[in-house]
Every structure is written in C-alpha cells, then in structure tokens.
C-alpha cells in the first residue's frame, strides 16, 4: 500500500542551496560519478545543477520516484467529476430541454467535453505542481555557480563539511570547489 509519507517524499524534495560547498565540472560523466560518491558517503543535503536533464542522475543521487503523475491523475479525475456534476445540474435540473428526443442526461454526448476537461485540469495541475515543487516563483534566485544554465555541471553539498573533506570526497574528478553563502 502506498503511504502518505512516500507520496510526500516523492514530491517535496527541493531545497534552496544555502551554505556548504559547490563543486563544478565540465563533463556530465564527472558529475554523475560525483553524485554517486556523495550519495554513498551519506551526505544528507545535496543537489546537482545541470544545463540539461541527464539520464541516470536521479538514480546516482538516490532521488525518490517523482509523484507528479499522481497529482495529474487526481486533479484530472476531479475536474471531470465536477464537470459532470455541473452538466447534470444544468441539463437535468436547471434547464431540462429535450433535444431530438434524447434523454436529459445524455452521458455519451458528454464524453468529448469530459475528456477535454480531464486533459485541461490534468495538464495545468501538472505544470502547477512542477512550479510549486521547484519553487519557481522565486525569480530572484542566483545560480550557485556561473554557467550552470549553459555548459557547467555543479553539485552542491549542504552538510557541514570542511573543504578538505569535500576535496577528499571528490578527489580525482577535477572539480573546482568554492563555498556557498
């Protein structure tokens, strides 16, 4: 059985990088190795920053499965149910007119509208979920390192580690390590 905790963990994972260290790389392979090392070292607070989505990075970081599709399903079905109630109220109770001898409650005739409404609510809630979960309303957010939207790959380590510890952790990957305010 799916627990509420599992859904919550699969949705609210984002954390603003504050304090700690950031290491930058020029190659996606190095970042993937770094993410695996950081995860295996048992670092609790860390995140990666990449200009493009990388396959396998979620596994390397040990991210929980994203539950965004769950939001889509729930909102989509909820939207369709509300629309069906609304149409039923209109066609059966508020304005019962006979069209072409058909019953007032014409379920088959409502299917196109119900489908569109499901897609409408499902789609918009998915986008809203990504905006809310990634806190994409904070428009003044500063990138943790220059170039992470262009050609630089970065990993942020938020746990209380010294620079030596971070250097040891990422040794041999050619990382450039700087502190984060």
């Amino acid at each position: 059985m799916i627990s509420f905790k599992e859904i919550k963990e699969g949705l609210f994972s984002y954390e603003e990088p504050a304090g700690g260290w950031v290491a930058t790389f020029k190659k996606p392979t190095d970042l993937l190795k770094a993410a695996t090392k950081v995860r295996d070292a048992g670092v609790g607070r860390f995140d990666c920053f990449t200009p493009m989505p990388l396959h396998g990075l979620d596994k390397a970081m040990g991210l929980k499965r994203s539950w965004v599709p769950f939001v889509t399903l729930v909102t989509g079905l909820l939207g369709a149910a509300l629309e069906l109630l609304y149409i039923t109220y209109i066609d059966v109770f508020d304005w019962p007119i006979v069209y072409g001898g058909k019953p007032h409650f014409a379920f088959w005739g409502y299917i196109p509208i119900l489908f569109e409404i499901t897609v409408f609510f499902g789609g918009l809630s998915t986008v809203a979920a990504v905006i809310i979960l990634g806190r994409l309303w904070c428009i003044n957010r500063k990138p943790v390192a220059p170039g992470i939207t262009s050609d630089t790959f970065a990993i942020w380590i938020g746990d209380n580690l010294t620079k030596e510890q971070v250097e040891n952790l990422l040794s041999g990957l050619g990382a450039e390590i700087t502190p984060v305010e």
Partner: protein
Amino acid sequence: MSAMENTNSLRIGKPYAEIDNDILKPLETFPTKTWWIAFLVAASALGMFGIVLTYSFFKGLGIFGLNNPVSWGFYIINFVFWVGIGHAGTLISAILYLFRQKWRTSINRAAEAMTIFAVMTAAVFPLIHVGRPWFVYWIFPYPNERGPLWVNFRSPLLWDLFAISTYFIISLVFWYMGLVPDFANMRDRLERFKSKTKIGQLLLDVKKITLRVISLGWVGSAKTWHHYEKMVLILSALATPLVLSVHTIVSFDFATSVIPGWHATIFPPYFVAGAIYSGFAMVLTLMIIMRNVFKMEAYITMKHLENMGLVILVTGMMVSFAYTMEFVMAAYSASHNEQYVFLNRLTGPYAWAFWVMFTCNVVSPHFMWFKKLRTNITVLFIISIVVNIGMWFERFVIVVTSLHRDYLPSSWDMYIPTFYDYAMLIGSFGLFFTMFLLFVRSFPAIAVAEVKADEANEELAQHH
C-alpha cells in the same frame, strides 16, 4: 546498417557553449535585412486583415460571399485549414517524444510555436462567423443573468469550443515550460552585456527583468529536472489523445449533420490524417526557410527534412485512401443525394477545385518515394507548398460542393467569394507569419536544453 548510421548522424558533436552561441547569439543582435523585409510583408497583410475585420464589424457578414445554401464559406474553410496546420506541432512535440524519435528535438520548438500561432489564427474565424462577436463569451457555460440560458452540451460546435481552447492552453503551457530552461540560459548570458548609451541600457534592463520573470528563477536543480522530466512525459501523454480529439471533433461539426458529403463515419480519421499532412507540409516550409535564413544547417539537417518528407508521403496516402473511400461509400450507399453530391464534385461547376485538390494531395506526395527528390531542398519546398494549397482546396471542396446543391434544387446557388473573402484569407497568413517572425527573433527557435540533453546523454551512454 544504414539505419544505424542515420541515427548517429543526428549528433551535432559541438561543445555545449558553442551550441548556445549558435542558437542564442542571433537573438542578441539587431535583426537582419531579410527579416525586416519578411516582417514588413507579413505585417502589411496583417494590417489588411485588421481593416477588413473592422469593416465587417460595421457592415456585417453580408460583405462576404455567403448565401443561403452556402452558409459556411471561406471562414469555416480557413478555420479548419489553420487548426489542421497546428496538428503537426503537437505530433512532433508529443507523439514523436513518446516514440523516442530523436530527430524531433531540433524542430520541436518551432513546430510547437507554429501550433500555437495556427490555432490563434484559426480561432479568429469562428469568432467572427457567429455574427455578433461581441457576444462570443455567451458560448461559455457560466451561470448568467439571461435566464440562466445554457449552451447545448450535446452539440459538436460546443465540443469544438472545449477541444480548441483546451488544445490551445495545453499547447501554450507545454511550449512555455519547454522554454523556461532556455530563458534561464538567455538570462545568464545577458549578465555580461552592458550598453554605452542611456536608452540602450534602459532597453537592456527591461530585457533582463523580463527574462528574469519569464525564466521563473530556473537554475537547473536536478530535483526540479526530475519533476520536470515527468511533466514532459505526462503532458506528451495528455497531448497525444488531445490532438487526435481536436480534429476528430472538428470533423464532427460536419459528420454529425445530415448533409450528403459530410455525413460519413470516415471523417474523424480522415480529418486527423489530413491535419497532420498539411501541418507537416507547413513545418517543412517554415524549417527550410528558417535553416537558410538563420544558418541552422547543423541542427536542422537533411535527415530532418527527409523524415518530414516521409511523413508527408505516409499521411498523403492516408488522405488519398479517404478520398477514394468516400466515393466507394457513396456509390454503395443507394442514396441518390449522396451519389449526386459526389458526381457533382467530379463533374459539377466546382470540379476544378476537386481536381486541384486531387493533383496537389494525391499525386504530389508520391515524389517522396525517391530519395533523390526527398533530399532535394527545392523539391521539398515546392511539394510542401503544393500540399498546403491542396489541403486548403480539400476544405473548400468539402464545405462548398456539399452545400451549394442541397436537397431542394430550387434553392441551389453558386458560392462566389468576394474581395473581402480573399483579403481575409491572405490576411490570415499575415497574422500567422507576423507572429512566427516575431517568435524566431525573440525566442530560441531551437530547444537548446533539449539539443544539449541529447548530446550529453549520448556521451553518458558511451561511458557506460
């Protein structure tokens, strides 16, 4: 073996920063002369559109060639034509994504933009065709003070409203969310720019603030990408049945009526195939122009153009099949009205329109069988335009030939479009191309993050 080589050839093999420069640099400079000329032509056509539209509001629909049997004229033809054009964008962004067709990456952004602008252009026509556009909001079923007076939820025309508005909104957010990482890239690139003049600095600041707002503070966190990738998958999965539903419902506008020539069960798949056919032809036209004007040969390669040519061949044959089936069904229907309508299409006063459609849509795609022709840009460009002419005439044939001779011979009449009809047709191209030209100048016309993702993930795959 050759198939493997083809997939590999899609790799660009440039450093990420260079890909950024290739695509984003043109947006940071002043537009070229070619762009200005194209823009002025499109904007003039748009101006004409605006003038005729305003005039029609004062004079009414009487200025157009509509008459009693042919109550759906150019307006509905243009509406169906433009909605159909839009379908290719969603096919490329959603359906080809689900089928993991890598070649979609570099054309999907512009194709999606085409979808949005085409749907916007299409939406103008039914809004005016209702006769009193200032009451057009009455079509939304909101609790109102008029009774309340409700809409008919069983009417395909209402389904159409729901389908087109959902399609537009979902396409718009899908497109916008795809742009966010690229906007963030543009925002960060702009940091190093400074202007010498005061006005220049002001404009630059406006640009910086706008980009900061529309890029939503995107920094590319892996945790956000994780949700984002799921969102792309979900939106593709939603947009796929959505795009099929849109032209299906547009075809219901015709098919659920009892007009011979419209009342056919083949209409939904026939319309969807036709929409993808004309849409791909339009994408091909736009991509050939775009890659030449903006020097994007490295991103929009011959392979892309060839693949689009093949899609045109396949959908063209589907459309040809539907044309043929319509005649078979009419011949087999034992209905005199049905048989007469199709005979009238072949030999009646509008036979020329039918034969234009037939030549353009049934004959021309077969040139795509030959590799030499489908890898020749001039041939592809001509075919893409010919197909769209044919697809416009297809809607003309469906609307006009079915209506102009109805059940009662005494009410038969000819449909003769007026100057205003033609002006609206040309003007609609002005509206579409003005928006598209503004798009290619101000937004990244190739999805930079997605192109780089293909490059990076290929590199990762080689290491494992």
